[in-house]
């Protein structure tokens, strides 16, 4: 089994707010991230796939296809967007780094043909990242 990781970057804005909380609860739980005008990050995405090395091609996965899938399913939807207002998953789900990792997994997983998705890692800043392995 060999693991292959492809990186990508995207920039987006978001804010954290749960309509079921009071204004005070939103402020206490989410702090500065509750500003309704939003704020932004430069995100780094790492997608790790795993598989046996194909004896004919020497590849775990065709990197060109992986790159295209990431670009189509993730970057075009998220890059330079206001996540809460423009990405359907975040109309109801708070766009935390945790939920970004889960959402990216759910977008990629059914679209990767030969490769088996192992991990999605999302860096919100160089000092904060979340890993999702598809665990229930």
């Amino acid at each position: 089994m060999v693991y292959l990781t492809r990186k990508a970057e995207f920039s987006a804005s978001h804010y954290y707010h749960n309509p079921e909380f009071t204004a005070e609860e939103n402020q206490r739980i989410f702090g500065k991230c509750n500003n309704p005008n939003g704020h932004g990050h430069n995100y780094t995405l790492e997608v790790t796939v795993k598989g046996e090395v194909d004896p004919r091609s020497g590849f775990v996965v065709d990197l060109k296809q992986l790159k295209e899938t990431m670009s189509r399913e993730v970057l075009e939807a998220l890059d330079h967007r206001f996540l809460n207002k423009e990405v359907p998953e975040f109309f109801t789900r708070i766009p935390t780094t945790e939920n970004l990792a889960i959402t990216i997994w759910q977008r990629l997983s059914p679209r990767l043909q030969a490769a088996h998705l192992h991990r999605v890692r999302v860096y919100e800043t160089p000092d904060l990242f979340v890993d999702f392995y598809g665990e229930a």
Partner: protein
Amino acid sequence: MKAYLTRRYMFSASHRLHSDFMSEAENAATYGKCNNPFGHGHNYTLEVTVSGPVDESTGMVCNLMDLDGFVQREILERFDHQNLNTVEEFARTVPTTENLCIVVYDILQRGFRHAHLEKVRFEETMMNSFEYWGENRVIK
């Protein structure tokens, strides 16, 4: 759904590697420059990884304010700009980065209640890093 959150922190501290169980010659042979009696320092990078189900109402494994607050209070205030050999945790233990991993892991394991502790990772320099997952744990 279960996710893993990692947060990085930095602090600076000095230490001297010296074991009371060894002779002067053994200490010098084992620790080399790190045995200098006056000590030396590092900028440590600490990575804390916690895990848990993502709370549907907050979208979080745990609130970063809780994790940052705990690490600031219990770890950074204890070790930042200190000589590790003078800190209580290293009164009987050599302050190698291996032992620093274990000490910090134990502080988090005992006191941090907002998520499950997965691992502690330290970068002593850009070239050296150390991880501790607790005893008998499966490494992801």
